[in-house]
């Protein structure tokens, strides 16, 4: 299973964090620090796979963002690269030519898309089209202001 997914910029600023196992805030912060230092110090044309503690870290750089995915030892690294790529494709389809700013200003959307693609550390849906359709449908469900105010809060 996947343990966590981090997105951070080249300056080390976190743009998205998804944790698939329960961890304390302190541990999360430490891991984020470790990952950013490790990944940002890699040479440009080196291998995308790292070893960290008992996990394999797969990272890939897309424009100004680093996608860092931690998987357990028995998982397939090449497939993890495909998972990262698939997520980027989903973001791209949703935002239309996605860039880092899109993810910054619409981070909650990025999370919603991720939650349609991965769940509990595993892949949920293998078809791009289905994921996109679901996101669009859920968005449609979001109420307009009138509908919102007409419904009671509790």
């Amino acid at each position, binding site marked *: 299973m996947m343990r966590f997914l981090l997105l951070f910029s080249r300056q080390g600023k976190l743009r998205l964090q998804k944790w698939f196992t329960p961890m304390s805030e302190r541990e999360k912060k430490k891991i984020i620090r470790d990952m950013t230092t490790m990944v940002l110090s890699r040479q440009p044309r080196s291998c995308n796979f790292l070893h960290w503690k008992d996990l394999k870290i797969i990272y890939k750089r897309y424009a100004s963002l680093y996608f860092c995915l931690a998987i357990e030892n028995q998982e397939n690294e090449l497939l993890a690269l*495909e*998972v990262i790529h698939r997520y980027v494709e989903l973001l791209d389809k949703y935002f239309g030519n996605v860039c880092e700013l899109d993810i910054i200003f619409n981070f909650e959307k990025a999370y919603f898309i991720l939650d349609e693609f991965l*769940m509990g550390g595993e892949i949920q849906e293998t078809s791009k089209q289905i994921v996109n359709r679901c996101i669009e449908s859920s968005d449609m469900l979001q*109420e307009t202001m009138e509908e919102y*105010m007409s419904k009671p809060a509790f």
Partner: protein
Amino acid sequence: MSPSVPLQEMIRAIRSARTQCEERGVIQRECAAIRAQFRQADNGGRSHNLAKLLYVHMLGYPAHFGQMECVRMIASPRYSEKRVGYLGAMMLLDEKQDASLLITNSIKNDLSHSSQYVQSLALCTLACMGSAEMCRDLAPEIDRLLRASNSYIKKKAALCAVHIVRKVHDLGELFAPAARSLLSEKNHGVLHGAVVLITELCERNPEALERFRKTVPDLVQIMKGLVISGYSPEHDVAGISDPFLQVRILRLLRILGHNNEAASDAMNDLLAQVATNTDSTKTVGNAVLYETVLTVLDIKSESGLRVLAVNILGRFLLNNDRNIRYIAMMSLQKIVGTDHIAVQRHRGTIVDCLKDPDASVKRRALELSLALVSASNIRSMMKELLIFLSSCPLELRAQAASGIFNAAERYAPSQRWHIDTILHVLTTAGGDVRDETVPNLIQLITTASELHCYTVHKLYRALLTDISQQSLVQVACWCIGEYGDLLLKGDCQETEPVQVTENDVLDALETVLQSHMSSPATRGFALTATMKLSTRITDNVDRIRSIVSIYGSCIDVELQQRAVEYNALFKKYDHMRAAVLERMPVIERNSPGHTNGESSGELVKEVQPVKVKEGDAAPTQQPANQVCDLLDLLGGSEEPLKPTSAQSGPAPGQPINTSNSSGGDLLDLLGGLEPVAFTPAPTVTVYEKNGVTLTLSCEKQSDSSMTVTLTASNSTDSDISSFTLQAAVPKSVQLHMKAPSGDSLPAHGTAKVTQTVVLNNPNKVNLKMRIRVSYTSRGSAFQDMVQVDSFPDSR
């Protein structure tokens, strides 16, 4: 209300802050506003406020006051609020927080909501942060959803079930039947979820594994469908139909086929088909091939299939993509033990990967290369490894050096090659080798007696070029000290002859002594070597004498001590100097924990004859004499020194040992010297009974004091333990017994116990001594008494 304008405004405000301080100010203001809003009655902005809080949380600021708001929002009927509320729950709440329990009820309600998207929110949150209790509560709901719902919910329920099984292992039983039936679904998402669930169940429970083995034909069928089927736009990735599902199925097949002949047979054809038909031009194809290879190697596959798998790995090694090369080497490393011959075929490619610029690839290549070294390819492999060592990154040097040493030791084709290799490593990476290398190399050199001339020439030349590598310098100094005469003789068959004068050699050693690059241990080596040369050279003994005396006032205590002792050797004991400094015999390779007494029956090879003859010693063991004691300060050998007078061969049946340098004790170089009996003090056997022999020898220290040494040995068949001696002397004599060397006498006289007694006889009375011997042999205690009336006169 789509893009959250208030959220985006806040993000913009935070990003425009120029300093960390400014940013903190903005955030504090925003958080205060959010907290106020939370307390207020309902307005249109609740979801925006929570979203703002989540953004602030991602930047690293505390956001725990939003937890209750999350709980409230989850319970709201408004979908936008639910959505953000659940997102907040996943980000802010985890099973360790108390508030997480409060959402259990909301989740339960939402699991039966009319809208599938609300259901999916609940499922997703449960799978993300559901605690064990929540899982237990909601498991029946999940099971229901697994059976009777649409595929959208089924696939999510399956993954939720996976999470539940991970948290509460016993609930696996609950989901097993549903998991089985899900395999007949057509929807890929559901299939994928089902395969993951089954994998999880099989990994945790061997009984479940047995039951699910029956699904192998179904899985093979599904897989075949994926591989053979035409283009399916929904699931296609670069020509491969749903690679994610394929990899998952392969992994499940691996688990099911492991250690099971029948299951492995059932999947043989399929694996062969996947291995041959999968397009390997893109990463995704290679991902599937990789998983296939892992599966083939892990199940009981037939040999043809295994060869196919290893060949795929070999092809990976030649791939341009660095990731694939890395993967290939990792996999080959795993099988190098079992399929050694198959991996050997790819040795050339692996060795080429040593030159890859990527550090991870280099590391893997190094490990794999070391694992592939064998007697047949040692020469060529070593060439490559040595080239690698000279250019490898620093973090790999120690590993490479020790790997090379191990390989050289196991497969060295000749001693000269072995010595050459070690010297090469020391010159290139001397700083990264382990400490035992120096004594190991010295031991190796002493065994290769015909190569002494060659070795010392080579080392001398290495010393002249570079004195910064401490290990190399230490070995070189030692060799020059030992074999300096061969160096000066100049002719050597193996290398070109070079004229080396005594002054050259002494210059070299002095450079080492004075250089600031030399560590204290190295300087100790150099000083000892200089001293040893005093017996091997003829003209410059005075120079050596002056060097030694200068260091008598050195600040380094170790060097000073040595220098003072050598000075003493020059002045007071000059007649012994030659004997003390003669050639060392071959050092026996010591295993850890070796004690002298154990090596019974091991005869030491006498390499060089003693240069100085000094009267025949009686062929009994010599007690440790003073010079030995003096030199032994550094050696610290606990066993009694057993000098052999080379003239008198070993006493019949009595094995003689060198007092062994334990192979790792650098300082023991001198302890390993064999002080030859020069003026043996006379010994007398005072007691001989039941196989126990006690001899006595004395040496007059001054007019009134005398040192008596008692030596005991045991010639019976069984070991003697708790051996103690007690002595009594006439009243006016002062007695001081030093600690004995030990209290056990092994059988057949393989080792002795000595005890020194210092007697002070100021009144010069007639010396007598009563000695009580007590020991345990064969489980019973013995005690005896002997009186010594006359002491042999010492010189």
